[in-house]
């Protein structure tokens, strides 16, 4: 076949332009997300699904805790009232609490009007002669007590004290402290508000907007002069600040990295054209990566964008190899392609093996990263090989780097002397890892969080002050109808109440408290005696008590009315503060109903999950179900433990897959080289780099998180190129030596060495910058990759076999 280089070049460039156009089109139609979906498993267990629902849309996820500091108590209270008033009028918020009695009138009326449907004390026994007598004497005692003033007016209507029963139930043990009529911190220095957004906590844009509204309300209420300060925390707030801090950090570090790398390359190339052309493969690769992820997953996650681009940073190396290794001018490009392309191709294949493992991950975030890296690297390499040479202008030349290469060569000659010390260091590193094998990894999800310690402390303080639930422990009741989950909730409540009485729990919430199941309401109604019966029994019940039965005429009338009163529906709660509780605790999704029963741990001791589980098992609900054959599930959920389990599963899977990827790299090299010792020589520097980096991090007290792992994959991907170039020089039949550009007695061309050094320097620069980040996930990548690639290069030089050996 007669090849016309000019024609082939034009075809390649045309195809590349088409490719750019297509990827551009795909990307312009892509959906970019920043929510948690990347961290959520593709096929979650029921527990995980519930957890995810809660994280994404749960009651607790929508809370914003607001604190007002500075100025004096009266000014803070006034601010609190003004802000609350504005926020209550805003549909972005479903509830705004600041201690002002907003709903209490309506709440009281609701409870009082429905007391015989709501009170758990209502049963047939309570309305027997004995039951009435006991309830009446209790009420009379209460009348004589200091609290008597509060209940006196209720006696004729509610002599059995159902209202007191209900108030007791709804009473929270540790209500927030009040200063000047609004909630305040225990020390009184902060006014507190508890705000619930309509949007879920994972809708970061909506959360950000909500924070903006709160801030505006604060600014408007404060005016220009006051020195009061606004603070906010909560899950949504954390998401917003995390996103902001990652965003600004990435932007800042990216800028610094780009400037440094560009300066470095300019110093090396002394050519703006070379610098500009050098980024062609990376940009092409990045576009390919985004387009591939968009096609493969239907959406691209922000995390994929950020870290994927770091992963294909390797592609910058390709153009460095091309520019530095090739002689100047056309003919040598062909020469480069013949001599070096197979090595780069093998390097790309090695990297793909490593990243392919990620594709199999059950977590979309990692799978997206894998797909991005693989497609990006392939395209970057292909563009370097087929397009970039044709883009080079006639007479393209860069600064001759041979001098640097020759100096490198002399170092490399002596590197072999370091074999033993290097091997000993490696052994020592292995020993360090072995000694720390138990605590190598940090599998708490908090390790990924960029939320600062100060913010976490503020959150703890505000929560303690406001008594906001941290909703760590939940009992979740599932069923196929509202009625069935309410009935199961009632059964579970009985068990939980027993645990409260035992002191195992401080308290719990349940939707059935505000909205009893129809069955229960009906049973309560049925236990109310008819007018005649009640009159007779009352007359007997007052015997021995200092009251006359006539006093209770209103009571008799109200019992008569309650017997035929319509049963409570969810809609009846509207406009009371209980409506919000029921809305948050009773979740309807698809065909599934869930009731959530948050548990409160006793203040002096935590919750013992095994005790709770055992008690719940005893109800027979999880397995046995209801007698009518429906099977509502009861699940005890420790959100904290479940989240950590989710992440540690994620981490373990990633470690397993990475090991699989490494096995793929080994298999690939064995297959290509057909020589175990040669494969081993190529693998040794990579293994050494990984072991030394892990040992180093461990010695510095860093526990590894998932981003360290991704960094290690990158070290292997980048380092494999180094090892392969050294290997090529010594296994190409003395090819480099024959080409005449090698130093005396050296296997590897000085120009190749120079290109490796430059590639290494750019990588170290790019990731070295990340190492100084205060965002843990960025810092982890930086401290892994920068030293890792240096070690990979050094160990490649040390372990290379001499050409004449």
């Amino acid at each position: 076949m007669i090849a016309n280089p000019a024609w082939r070049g034009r075809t390649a460039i045309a195809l590349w332009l088409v490719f750019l156009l297509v990827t551009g089109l795909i990307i312009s139609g892509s959906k970019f997300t920043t929510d948690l979906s990347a961290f959520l498993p593709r096929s979650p267990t029921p527990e995980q699904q519930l957890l995810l629902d809660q994280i994404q849309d749960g009651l607790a996820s929508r809370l914003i805790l607001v604190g007002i500091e500075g100025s004096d108590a009266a000014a803070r209270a006034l601010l609190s009232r003004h802000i609350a008033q504005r926020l209550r009028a805003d549909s972005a918020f479903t509830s705004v609490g600041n201690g002002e009695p907003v709903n209490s009138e309506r709440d009281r009326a609701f409870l009082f009007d429905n007391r015989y449907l709501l009170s758990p004390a209502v049963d047939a026994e309570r309305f027997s002669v004995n039951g009435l007598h006991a309830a009446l004497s209790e009420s009379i005692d209460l009348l004589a007590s200091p609290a008597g003033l509060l209940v006196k007016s209720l006696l004729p209507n509610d002599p059995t004290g159902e209202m007191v029963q209900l108030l007791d139930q709804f009473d929270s043990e540790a209500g927030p402290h009040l200063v000047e009529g609004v909630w305040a911190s225990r020390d009184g220095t902060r006014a507190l508000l508890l705000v619930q957004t309509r949007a879920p906590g994972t809708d970061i844009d909506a959360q950000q907007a909500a924070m903006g509204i709160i801030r505006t309300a604060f600014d408007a209420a404060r005016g220009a002069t006051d020195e009061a300060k606004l603070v906010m925390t909560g899950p949504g707030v954390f998401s917003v600040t995390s996103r902001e801090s990652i965003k600004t950090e990435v932007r800042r570090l990216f800028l610094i990295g780009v400037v440094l790398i560009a300066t470095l390359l300019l110093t090396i190339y002394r050519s703006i054209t070379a610098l500009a052309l050098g980024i062609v493969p990376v940009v092409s690769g990045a576009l390919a990566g985004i387009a591939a992820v968009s096609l493969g997953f239907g959406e691209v996650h922000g995390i994929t964008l950020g870290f994927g681009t770091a992963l294909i940073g390797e592609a910058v190396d390709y153009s460095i190899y091309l520019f530095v290794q090739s002689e100047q001018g056309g003919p040598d490009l062909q020469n480069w392609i013949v001599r070096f392309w197979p090595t780069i191709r093998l390097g790309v294949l090695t990297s793909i093996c490593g990243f392919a493992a990620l594709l199999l991950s059950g977590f979309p975030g990692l799978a997206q990263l894998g797909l991005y890296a693989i497609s990006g690297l392939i395209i970057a390499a292909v563009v370097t090989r087929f397009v970039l040479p044709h883009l080079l202008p006639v007479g393209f030349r860069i600064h001759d780097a041979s001098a640097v290469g020759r100096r490198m060569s002399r170092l490399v000659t002596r590197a072999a002397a370091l074999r033993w010390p290097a091997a000993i260091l490696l052994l020592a590193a292995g020993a360090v890892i072995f000694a720390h094998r138990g605590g190598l990894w940090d599998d708490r999800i908090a390790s990924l969080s960029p939320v600062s310690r100060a913010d976490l402390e503020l959150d703890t303080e505000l929560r303690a002050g406001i008594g906001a639930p941290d909703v760590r422990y939940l009992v979740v009741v599932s069923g196929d109808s509202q009625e069935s989950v309410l009935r199961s909730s009632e059964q579970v409540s009985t068990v939980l109440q027993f645990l409260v009485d035992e002191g195992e729990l401080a308290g719990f919430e349940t939707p059935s408290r505000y909205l009893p199941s129809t069955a229960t309401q009906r049973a309560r109604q049925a236990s109310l005696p008819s007018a005649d019966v009640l009159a007779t029994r009352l007359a007997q019940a007052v015997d021995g008590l200092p009251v006359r039965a006539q006093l209770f005429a209103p009571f008799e009338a109200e019992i008569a009315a309650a017997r035929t009163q319509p049963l409570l529906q969810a809609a009846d709660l509207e406009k009371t503060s209980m409506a919000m509780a029921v809305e948050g605790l009773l979740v309807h999704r698809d065909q599934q109903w869930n009731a959530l029963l948050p548990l409160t741990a006793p203040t002096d001791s935590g919750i013992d999950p095994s005790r709770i589980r055992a008690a719940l098992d005893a109800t027979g609900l999880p397995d046995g179900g209801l007698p009518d054959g429906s099977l509502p599930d009861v699940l005890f959920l420790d959100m904290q433990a479940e989240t950590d389990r989710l992440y540690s599963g994620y981490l373990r899977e990633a470690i397993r897959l990475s090991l699989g990827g490494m096995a793929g790299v080994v298999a690939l090299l064995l297959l290509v080289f057909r020589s175990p010792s040669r494969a081993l020589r190529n693998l040794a520097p990579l293994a050494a780099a990984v072991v030394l980096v892990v040992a180093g991090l461990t010695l510095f007290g860093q526990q590894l998180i998932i981003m360290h792992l991704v960094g290690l994959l990158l070290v292997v991907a980048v380092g494999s190129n180094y090892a392969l170039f050294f290997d090529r020089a010594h296994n190409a039949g003395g090819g480099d030596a024959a080409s005449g550009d090698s130093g005396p007695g050296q296997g590897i061309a000085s120009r190749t060495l120079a290109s490796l050094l430059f590639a290494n320097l750019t990588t170290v620069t790019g990731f070295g910058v990340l190492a100084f980040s205060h965002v843990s996930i960025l810092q982890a990548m930086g401290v892994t990759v920068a030293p890792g690639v240096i070690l990979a290069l050094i160990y490649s030089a040390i372990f290379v076999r001499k050409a004449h050996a």
Partner: protein
Amino acid sequence: MKTPFFPPIFSPHLFRSVCGALALLVATPVNSDCTRWTIDQLMQAMQEIRSDQARFTERKAIAMLEEPVDSSGELFYTAPDRMEKRTLKPKPESMILDGDSLVFERGGKKRRFRLQETPELAAFITSIRGILAGDRAALEQNYGLSLEGSAADWTLQLLPLDEKIHGVVTSIRISGAGNAVHTIETLQADGDSSLMLIERQAAQ
């Protein structure tokens, strides 16, 4: 008749006339009426109490009930704003007022209120605390005050200013000697009343 041990100058009678003469002599407006026991003097005396402990018996007359209800127990006060009423009979229960938090404990159950939540009850309870603390400003926020009698036997009457509170409590009469409170009599708008007799145990 036996000669009094004290010289006549110390008899209240003479003392009062000497005072009057002095007042006339200096011909200044009467800045302090030394003959009368004033609210400020009472408040000042009360302020000296750092903590106080007493026994009480209380009889409540409630129209709805055929018989009055009796109870008894102990009272504790710690300046400036903590007060506890610990009823021992007929059923043990307690009421603790601390700052603006009000806790009732009864049969192992605690019921917490904030004073703001129960304005009527708050007005009643804080009036007693206001007297113990000698906090005239706090008292005058809710009540019109009038004092009768002498240091050795005074009666302070509190009449609610607020309409709503007046609808529940019509008057509170507190009597005592020096800085010791002896009785608290409450009259409610619906005709119910209570009388509490107090006997100091220890004061500091």
